[in-house]
């Protein structure tokens, strides 16, 4: 008789379950700590800290606010103070050993001045003055200081805005027009000096070509009417098509270079326009000067207790107090209530989110950075999703499953493992220099006229052959033969060569490129998004393939049973059924693309881009421009900054922003997917 054993403890799996649970807890903890640390650090960065006045052992006085304390070498406890006042030749952060401090107070009138340049200034405000011919007329002092300051600061901000509006509005328009005229002159000169491609045909040769085109066309029509063989009709049609193309491109009035008289006319017109524009610019500049002169009259004195000096207008004029308009914000840290501190926090966050960065990114806002990140992510999705979906559709639905498709799948999966910086190098070499250079200046070594037209003719013949070979099998179940496939491949290769080597294209921006400032032949947001699209392509292809494979066979059969063709089935049943899965792929691609930094450094991210890739000037979408990116910005703040202590808080806030933006973009995509799912699938199934 067999005695059954008791079930051992290990068989129940109880210990293993604990290990699993621990692993889950560890993963969750890692995420919570990561997010929590970033949120805490970011939220304390902009919090108002009290200003302390220190009396040191040597009797000197310092103003500053505590950043952090630590026990340094030899057990000496010391404190890092933000003391600002860089104009006085000191570092804006300084360690002070606690034993050197004799007394600490928090003077009510101490302020932290956030300035538009040279960082913060700690001091005691004394008075506001208005400079006149003779000297300085005090406007506010003591009790009246703050009321006067609020008034004057509001006015100063108005003046700043007015100057900015003139500068970025009228002056910028004028400058753009000037640049356009200058380019027009340069362009017409360039075209007059170099012929741009092969020399124009002699008129008699062109006339012969016109006659040949007419002959071929008439021949094609005649053969069609007579009802000749299909091959003949096709051949004559191709010939007529080519001849018409040749005649149109080689027409004498198209190929003619501008004459000296025309160049002179353009130049005269341009000079006239430029003169008007210069006058306009001068008048705008005069208006700006007037506002600036008014602005320069209002000064505020904030005195540093250590040296007794007030905050200067600039390093070169240390004896002139700063202009009121140079004040971004005055924080009366020791007098603020909790609510007011919250308001300052809000104002600082708003300033961080909205405007442009200042002072080598260490101050000001990050709006262009956010904008660049979002624009890049959207562009990359627009590029990668259609490409990936179409590729996956072919791979799964149309390609004959076999060795070829397996090899392709492995290759695609391997692409996902290539280090991202490799894509950056490729993007720089291929997109920026090769493709961009072509767009700017046309082919570097174009073919002469005759061999090029020979290639075009060969391409046309092969395409016609492919059409003929493939025509019989469109509707039936049979497979396209090898012949048609080979012909199409050859035609595509020829098409690429024809486009790459054309003698008739000398670029869209040749004039600027000749001046040494390439438009598309350099780093820019278009090439960056295409590079990231390549990088994320495997993600989309794999996700789409899986989604397509998950569409049940019964659905396809149902569609075929209704008399649908393969394409109709794919378009109306397979793609809608796979859409949620495709969206998942797109979300993963976006998340990966938005967080990439390494390739962006090579193909387009900039430390500072003065103009956004989208603007109100035509053509509105400036895909050639460089852009700022949050990931690169973090790197720049954390490692490339002049003053690491000053930018450290910004690293945290920028990181929080990056996470938030990726989260928001993903949430939008997930919401869209949810809607699609709701439409397509339901709990009842």
């Amino acid at each position, binding site marked *: 008789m067999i005695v059954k054993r008791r079930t051992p403890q290990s068989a129940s799996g109880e210990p293993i379950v604990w290990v699993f649970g621990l692993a889950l807890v560890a993963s969750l903890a890692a995420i919570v700590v990561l997010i929590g640390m970033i949120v805490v650090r970011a939220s304390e960065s902009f919090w108002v800290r009290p200003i302390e006045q220190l009396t040191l052992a040597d009797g000197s006085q310092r103003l500053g606010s505590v950043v952090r304390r630590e026990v340094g070498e030899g057990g000496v406890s010391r404190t890092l103070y933000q003391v600002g006042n860089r104009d006085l030749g000191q570092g804006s952060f300084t360690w002070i050993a606690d034993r050197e401090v004799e007394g600490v107070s928090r003077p009510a009138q101490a302020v932290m001045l956030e300035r538009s340049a040279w960082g913060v200034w700690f001091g005691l405000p004394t008075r506001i003055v208005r400079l006149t011919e003779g000297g300085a007329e005090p406007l506010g002092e003591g009790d009246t200081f703050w009321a006067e300051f609020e008034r004057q600061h509001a006015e100063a901000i108005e003046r700043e805005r007015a100057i900015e509006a003139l500068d970025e509005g009228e002056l910028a328009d004028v400058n753009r027009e000037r640049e356009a005229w200058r380019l027009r002159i340069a362009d017409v000169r360039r075209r007059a000096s170099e012929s741009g491609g092969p020399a124009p045909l002699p008129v008699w040769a062109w006339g012969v070509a016109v006659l040949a085109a007419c002959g071929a066309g008439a021949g094609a029509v005649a053969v069609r009417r007579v009802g000749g063989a299909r091959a003949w009709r096709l051949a004559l049609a191709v010939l007529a098509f080519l001849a018409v193309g040749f005649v149109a491109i080689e027409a004498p009035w198209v190929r003619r270079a501008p004459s000296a008289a025309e160049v002179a006319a353009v130049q005269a017109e341009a000079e006239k326009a430029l003169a008007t524009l210069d006058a306009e610019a001068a008048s705008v500049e005069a208006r700006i000067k007037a506002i600036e002169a008014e602005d320069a009259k209002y000064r505020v004195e904030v005195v540093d207790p250590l040296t007794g000096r007030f905050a200067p207008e600039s390093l070169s004029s240390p004896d002139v107090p700063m202009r009121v308009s140079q004040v971004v914000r005055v924080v009366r840290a020791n007098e603020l209530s909790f609510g007011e501190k919250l308001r300052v926090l809000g104002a600082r966050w708003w300033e961080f989110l909205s405007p442009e960065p200042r002072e080598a990114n260490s101050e000001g806002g990050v709006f262009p950075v956010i904008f660049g990140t979002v624009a890049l992510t959207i562009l990359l999705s627009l590029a990668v999703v259609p490409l990936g979906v179409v590729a996956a559709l072919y791979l799964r639905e149309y390609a004959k499953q076999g060795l070829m498709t397996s090899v392709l799948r492995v290759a695609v999966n391997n692409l996902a493992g290539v280090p991202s910086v490799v894509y950056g190098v490729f993007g720089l070499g291929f997109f920026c220099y090769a493709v961009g250079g072509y767009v700017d200046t046309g082919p570097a070594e174009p073919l002469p006229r005759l061999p090029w037209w020979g290639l075009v003719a060969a391409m046309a013949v092969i395409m016609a052959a492919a059409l003929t070979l493939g025509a019989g099998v469109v*509707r*039936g*179940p049979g497979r396209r033969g090898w012949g048609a496939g080979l012909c199409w491949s050859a035609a595509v290769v020829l098409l690429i060569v024809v486009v790459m080597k054309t003698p008739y294209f000398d670029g869209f921006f040749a004039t600027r490129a000749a001046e040494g400032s390439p438009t598309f032949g350099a780093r820019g947001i278009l090439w960056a998004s295409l590079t990231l699209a390549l990088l994320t392509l495997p993600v989309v292809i794999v996700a789409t393939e899986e989604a397509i494979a998950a569409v*049940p066979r*019964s*659905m*396809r*059969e*149902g*569609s*075929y*049973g*209704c*008399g*649908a*063709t393969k394409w*109709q089935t794919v378009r*109306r*049943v397979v793609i*809608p*059924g796979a*859409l949620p899965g495709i969206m998942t792929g797109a979300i993963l691609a976006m998340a990966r693309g938005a967080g990439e930094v390494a390739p962006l450094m090579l193909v387009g991210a900039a430390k500072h881009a003065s103009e956004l890739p989208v603007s109100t000037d035509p053509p509105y979408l400036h895909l050639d421009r460089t852009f700022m990116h949050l990931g690169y910005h973090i790197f720049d703040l954390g490692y490339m900054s002049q003053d690491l202590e000053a930018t450290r808080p910004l690293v945290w806030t920028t990181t929080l922003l990056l996470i938030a933006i990726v989260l928001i973009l993903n949430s939008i995509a997930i919401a869209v997917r949810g809607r699609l799912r*709701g*439409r*397509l*699938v*339901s*709990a*009842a*199934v």
Partner: protein
Amino acid sequence: MTISTPQRGYRVVDAIRAGEAVAPEVHKAARTDDPVLEVHGFSLWYGKSRALHAVDMAVHRGKVTAIVGPSGCGKSTLLRSVNRLNDLVDGVRTDGDILLNGSPVYGSGVDVITLRKRLGMVFQKPNPFPMSIRDNVVYPLVIDGERRRKVLNEAAERALTAAALWDEVKDRLRESALGLSGGQQQRLCIARAVVADPEVLLLDEPCSALDPVATLRIEELIHQIASRYTVLIVTHNMQQATRVSDFTAFMYLGRLVEYGPTAAVFQSPHLPETEDYVTGRFG
């Protein structure tokens, strides 16, 4: 396949098992001068294995014809050969021909897409498409190029009414068809199959994935539809065959064994093997 102990000798089935060609037992009443479908010596191979052996059969116009037989006897294959859905399987080869209202189904000049548009098909599992109820029903018209909203809406109402589904879904035509219950989905598929007025309606075990109540409704529906369409139904449910069909064909191992009016096949079959099969003693 499990075969219970045979209680008597089977002339036809034993011959089939031995691989010999046997003429099927076709009742006189099952012959017709005006067939919708004529199967002429039709054979089909999946790769090397032969699924149909020279089947000959004529389907009566305006009647319901059931095909019964044990699993793997080729009844579904025969049904799917009519609209050439088997073309989608790799390595399929055929011999012989099927005539749909006189025009050949197989042959080099046949346009498969046009052929399938002349037929309607309902599958074992309900297979609504991932789109709205209305779009599901009018799908065959839309892929045929019909774009007029009015025509489509009228066709949808007509087909849904014919499929006894209109009253249940008329207020939610824009909603996803995947939200319907299994029985409703199958009736939707029937509506989709009849919307383009098919010459023959092919039903491939349409109730096998449904509960008894839904099955009953579908059977009633087949009764109603049968007055307007020719129906060819594959089933492995004997009761269903007796309830819905006018003629019954019994198939075994890829061959037609007996074919006749349903009443005759079930009550006085010519062959003992047929009698044993329909009474559940064989197969």
